[in-house]
């Protein structure tokens, strides 16, 4: 059990790290949003699932409820994250910012 939890948390941390590095490395506003919004969502999913599993070590009603609350956090992140990304992209388009494309195309 502990092995699974640690494995999931490490995977989540790798996703978060990838998100941070991606924000620094990608060339423009729009492509930076890809790692910012989505690797974070994936990392949050993995870490929250790991926490819910860890929490169920001592199985009882209260830990089960806490597990459900943690899963609820994941659900809300999955609903709000695409909406927020869409809002930011929409703001960029409305402000007239063009996307970066390859020069040799």
């Amino acid at each position, binding site marked *: 059990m502990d092995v699974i939890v640690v494995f999931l948390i490490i995977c989540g941390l*790798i*996703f978060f790290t*990838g*998100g941070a*590095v*991606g924000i620094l*490395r*990608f*060339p*423009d506003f*729009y*492509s930076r*949003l*890809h*790692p910012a*919004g*989505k*690797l974070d*969502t*994936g990392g949050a*999913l993995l870490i929250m699932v790991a926490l819910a599993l860890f929490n169920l070590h001592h199985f009882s*009603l*209260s830990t089960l*409820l806490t597990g*459900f*609350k943690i899963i*609820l956090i994941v659900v809300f992140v*999955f*609903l*709000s*994250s*695409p*909406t927020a*990304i*869409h809002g930011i*992209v*929409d703001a960029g*388009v409305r402000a007239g910012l063009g*996307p*970066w*494309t*390859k020069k040799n*195309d």
Partner: protein
Amino acid sequence: MKAQAQGKAIHHEPARESDSRPVVPSHGTARSLLSYAMAFFILFCLWVILSGKFDLFHLSLGVISCLMVTLFSKDLLFPEPRTAGSFAIWIRFIRYIPWLLYQIFMANLHVLYLVFHPKMMDLIDPQIFRLQSSLKGDLALVTFANSITLTPGTITVYVSIDGTFTVHALDKQSREGLPGEMERRIAKAFGEE
């Protein structure tokens, strides 16, 4: 989920388009009662999970406040009894979620690979492109838009009510996978085949 979905759908439509949309007629009191019951049930599940107390006092408080919220937000939560009332759609939608999670995971790995690749600038090819979807219902369109945004490599920039999606894609591979299986599965889940 429904409130958010509706809010997003409204956000996508410019005023001139939402004016011309046909008003969905109510399908009788049985249907709207069913959608009230759904809203109440979901709210009450939330209440029980968040409060964690099962004595009579707290449960009755929950029933009262959930009833009040259901009544207050009747226009907001399930304004379209036709889609909200059908349990078949809910069950098929729940069966769609594991596939979506799997796709998100695979695509996350792909973006992770891009992020850490030393020659990242050669691999990526960001572009904004349009695609025409055959989905019709509001909820199906919003689900498709959110699924596109959640799948790494693609972001929905704009959705119009007739199903034209403007999508920003990170590279060729994410672009090619798009008007494909995901749309088919959503169409299946919402009974629009």
